[in-house]
């Protein structure tokens, strides 16, 4: 039950993009085409879950016992960067089609603040390992949902008559605002 609550809360109530404001750059960057968005989602779900597990272990077994919690940011970002690189190399060797599908999006993920953000949130919320994994996956799904919603709407937008100054980013942000308003309706269903 607790896990279901974590999932609902992360996907709908506290959606990482629309209410926590994380991962907006990739959301605005790759959401112009539906197929790009789907590729990015796959890569994010994969890397975020993996990165959360690794950073959780780093925190519990290296940083905490040595009392060097202040190195958290440095350690996490290095772990994430190394992990992304490794995933890229392994994918290239193991599964060619998967690499071709996700490859271009992998380097972008290092600077995707959702990954570092979730890794830090998990520690702040004092989750255990299993809860952390569920939380990370739920957030990745929440991110994917927002991204796919965005890209579908933006493809429609190409056909709409938008005033010149509002074309591109501004109108996308206004749409994000409306989506976020809609998501506020979910507030209160957990608790």
């Amino acid at each position, binding site marked *: 039950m607790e896990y279901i609550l974590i999932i609902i809360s992360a996907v709908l109530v506290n959606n990482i993009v629309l209410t926590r404001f994380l991962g907006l750059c990739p959301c605005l960057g790759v959401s112009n085409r539906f197929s790009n968005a789907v590729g990015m989602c796959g890569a994010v779900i994969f890397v975020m879950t993996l990165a959360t597990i690794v950073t959780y272990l780093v925190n519990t077994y290296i940083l905490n016992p040595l009392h*060097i919690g*202040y*190195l958290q940011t*440095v350690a996490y970002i*290095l772990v994430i960067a190394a992990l992304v690189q490794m995933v890229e190399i392994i994918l290239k060797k193991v599964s060619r089609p998967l690499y071709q599908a996700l490859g271009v999006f992998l380097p972008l993920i290092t600077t995707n603040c959702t990954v570092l953000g979730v890794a830090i949130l998990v520690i702040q*919320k004092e989750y255990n390992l299993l809860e952390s994994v569920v939380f990370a996956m739920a957030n990745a799904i929440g991110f994917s949902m927002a991204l796919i919603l965005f890209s579908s709407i933006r493809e429609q937008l190409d056909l709409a008559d938008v005033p010149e100054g509002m074309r591109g980013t501004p109108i996308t942000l206004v749409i994000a605002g409306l989506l976020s308003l809609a998501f506020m309706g979910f*507030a*209160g269903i957990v*608790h």
Partner: protein
Amino acid sequence: MKKKEPTFLNLVTTLFVATFVSSASLGFVYEVTKGPKARAELNKKIEAIRNVVPEFDSSPFDDKTERCQNERCITLYPVKKAGEVVGTAVESWTQQGFGGEIKLMVGFLPDGTIYDVEVLDHKETPGLGDKIDRKKSDFTRQFQNKNPGAFSLTVKKDGGSVDAITAATISSRAFCNAVQRAYDVYRKESSH
């Protein structure tokens, strides 16, 4: 200037030196800021105690007692004026906030009446739930001079006496929960 062809050893050394210098300087900054950080936290607590109990001349940290359950503690700070106990500040918490944990300092007079409440720490939504902070709204005022024995610490929607913040019932409920927790512990302590 032409860069020399990097060898593997070269790469590893560079990375190692970079991380080493970084951790060393961070360790230094951490040591330097540790003192002021602890002092700032202590000051914040003293300030909060001062705000929620009547004037006192004792040092509340000398008389503090802790009541722990499942590794979570509630701290009581009795304060005295001229040797006489004039009130008790209770550091309480709840996990039921909209954004997670809320920490409160609740001040009681010796008869169990609430003198005042101050929020120590919260993660509620700006504009909605953050009105539990007395700097943002008058929400906490309604708790002043109320005795939880007669004043039901639940929101009116649930049949209690507390006016909830508009559109932030969850935060208001959580706030009541933390105050109730403080009162329960205080009653148990003072009845000894």
